[in-house]
């Protein structure tokens, strides 16, 4: 494969920065490891798929490992399939089939293909041991910023140690701090922001984006504040009996900032788990960070069940929701200007909040579409396709960035929940910032001015910095 040839597949063309990366990777003088920090939407995975394809042409018996978040595996397999690359998504069931077909159970990884697996799966003791029995030619780590520290970093480090000639390609986004080098001495790094991307004639592809950050402040009523305190007290009582003290309260504070639905779902889940002595991990949503997973280790007492039950009842009887009111105010304002908001995306971290917001929009007579991680992928794709075609309101959870959806035509983004980490903020904003997007982009962030410390205000500050960087 000649990387100097632009691959024109209708919608897919290799851009100069992508061609440069491929050439740089295969330069005989190239370092063993290459860290690619490209802004969301610049084609990191697309370019990586070309590198994998070329590697297999140069060395047909190569063994290639692609470590990728589980949610992206199918999509990456599709990209690899387009390059004609034989690939296999390896989960526990596939691994057993491979073991049965292989000569030895320890080394079922053959040559001439790419194996895709999640870093979490690769970190399991037996899988880690099995991966360590073979010599890898190329390891690609997508979302490398998630691999730093602990067992996950150890897996890659072990593989590098066990395969001295392996090439390592790490993919991440700009602005993220330290990325581990996994024991490799020779490193090269490339960073690219959207303003630096040129077309083949040397012209900038992106204009400076015009973004406006509009904080939408609201203040909780006395009643809401009281209920919030009662809920946290009930959770503290429950956690002192059956959970990890710090984490449970932390999880609930996030739910409390989101919506009554998110809190109710959290309370019901906690109550059921304690009632059924269902020990093990406790998390509220699919995108939970490690620090947001608690452990239920004991059965709750009658007092805790009753307190949690009273909170659920009270929550259902309260009809004041200040955050919702602020959101409705925004919608009304937009609706005053047009019969329908032209293309608005509403982001929340909780699936329960997504359904709550759909109900809110129903009540207002506004048609909406929704995407979340538990939806079949075909339905996610269809919802995005319809939204891109007809506009209106799309309510989305974290899946909006992990699925790789393209939402460049969105005029306004409402952060019903402001993403809590800078990485999440960058990834989310990147989805609304694709090639050819040059319209004014309004970001409305709902900010609770009641809470102390003002967590959402801090997050909004970080958001402003990111938008400012992009506009430079």
């Amino acid at each position, binding site marked *: 494969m000649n990387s100097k040839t632009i691959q024109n597949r209708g919608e897919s063309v290799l851009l100069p920065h992508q061609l440069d990366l491929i050439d740089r990777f295969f330069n005989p003088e190239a370092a063993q490891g290459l860290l690619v920090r490209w802004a969301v939407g610049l084609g990191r995975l697309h370019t990586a798929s070309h590198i994998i394809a070329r590697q297999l042409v140069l060395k047909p018996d190569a063994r290639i490992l692609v470590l990728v978040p589980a949610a992206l595996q199918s999509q990456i397999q599709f990209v690899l399939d*387009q390059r004609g690359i034989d690939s296999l998504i390896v989960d526990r*069931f596939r691994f*057993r089939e491979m073991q049965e077909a292989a000569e030895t159970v320890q080394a079922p990884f053959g040559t001439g293909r790419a194996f895709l697996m999640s870093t979490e799966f690769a970190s399991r003791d037996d899988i880690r041991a099995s991966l360590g029995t073979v010599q890898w030619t190329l390891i690609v780590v997508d979302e490398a910023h998630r691999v730093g520290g602990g067992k996950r970093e150890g897996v890659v480090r072990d593989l590098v140690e066990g395969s001295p000639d392996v090439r390592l390609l790490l993919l991440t986004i700009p602005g993220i701090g330290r990325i581990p080098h996994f024991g490799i001495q020779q490193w090269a790094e490339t960073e690219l922001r959207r303003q630096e991307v040129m077309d083949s004639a040397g012209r900038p592809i992106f204009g400076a984006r015009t973004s406006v950050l509009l904080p939408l402040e609201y203040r909780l009523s006395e009643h809401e504040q009281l209920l919030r305190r009662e809920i946290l007290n009930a959770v503290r009582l429950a956690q002192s009996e059956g959970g990890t003290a710090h984490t449970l309260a932390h999880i609930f504070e996030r739910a409390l900032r989101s919506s009554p*639905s998110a809190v109710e*779902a959290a309370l019901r889940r906690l109550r059921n788990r304690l009632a059924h002595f269902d020990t093990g991990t406790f998390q509220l949503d699919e995108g939970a960070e490690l620090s947001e997973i608690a452990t239920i280790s004991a059965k709750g007492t009658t007092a805790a069940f009753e307190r949690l039950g009273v909170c659920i009842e009270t929550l259902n009887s309260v009809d004041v929701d200040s955050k919702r009111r602020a959101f409705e105010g925004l919608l009304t304002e937009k609706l005053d200007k047009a019969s329908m908001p032209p293309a608005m995306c509403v982001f929340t971290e909780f699936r329960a909040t997504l359904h709550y917001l759909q*109900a809110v929009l129903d009540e207002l007579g506004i048609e909406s579409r929704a995407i979340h991680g538990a939806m079949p992928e075909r339905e996610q794709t269809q919802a995005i396709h319809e939204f891109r075609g007809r506009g209106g309101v799309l309510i989305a959870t974290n899946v909006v960035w992990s699925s790789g959806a393209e939402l460049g035509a969105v005029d306004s983004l409402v952060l019903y929940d402001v993403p809590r980490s800078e990485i999440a903020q960058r990834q989310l904003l990147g989805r609304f910032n694709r090639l050819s997007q040059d319209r004014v982009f309004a970001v409305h962030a709902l900010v609770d001015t009641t809470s102390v410390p003002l967590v959402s205000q801090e997050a909004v500050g970080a958001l402003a910095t990111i938008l400012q960087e992009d506009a430079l």
Partner: protein
Amino acid sequence: MSDEHITDDGASDKLEAVRALDLVSKLFHQVNRVVPADQQLLTIPPEMAVRDAIALLQEHRFSQLPVVAGERVLGVFSYRSFAHKAARLNASDITKQKSAPGDLPVEDFVETFEFASVHDEMPKVFESMENDNGILIGSHDKLIGILTPMDFLRYLYELASPFVMLSEIELTLRELIRLAVSQEELEACAILSLENLYGAEKVPKTLESMTFDNYRMIISHGESWPKFQGLLGSNRTLVSGKLRELCELRNDVFHFKREIKAADRETIREYRQWLLFHARKTEARRGGM
């Protein structure tokens, strides 16, 4: 333009096709699906003392452990295999060995297990389950896993429980609607909420001919809501949001749209509890049990 994202319908169809091919082995309920996904095989060497092996069984709450020398499976050590063979030991055996039973190596107490392939059909292993209380997966030189009757029970429960719980939910919801409105009122509510969807002539009139989403639309309609308010909670938006999620889950389960995961089962169970609570409350109000 980058193609790391989905950009057109044709692409998404191809993506589905790739995915479907990858899922072929997941579509049939063969032995591979029954062995727990998180199973990390624990084996013991033949020279391990019985005392230590039993401590391992207790620690991991297992009933049996494969005994492996190098790559070769020698058999299985279990409470049963130990009891069978220990019961046959007499005082002179113990004196001759100069050891208490707990100090003896596990190799003296192993029993043989059958092997199954990951591709075997479930009924093929029933006999071994009954006779040996388990079966090994793989072969004598390639041990891949172990399957027990409890794994079967858990697997079948996980498979069946969403259907059972959702049928309880749907039937309860119907009964609660019946308690809230008369047939005449139901028809009037249906016209209010469903006319736009079906057209005036085709609005379904009975609960049996309506979909779960029809129930949601009827209950959460602004004008009908006062009739249902007391039955499911007083916050219309919260109730409506819950019914929306339930409807999605119900359709995913009954139309086999996707794999139902542990978190989904947990959510369905929570909604079942929610309806059970309201059904009990309604029953108590009406002077029932």
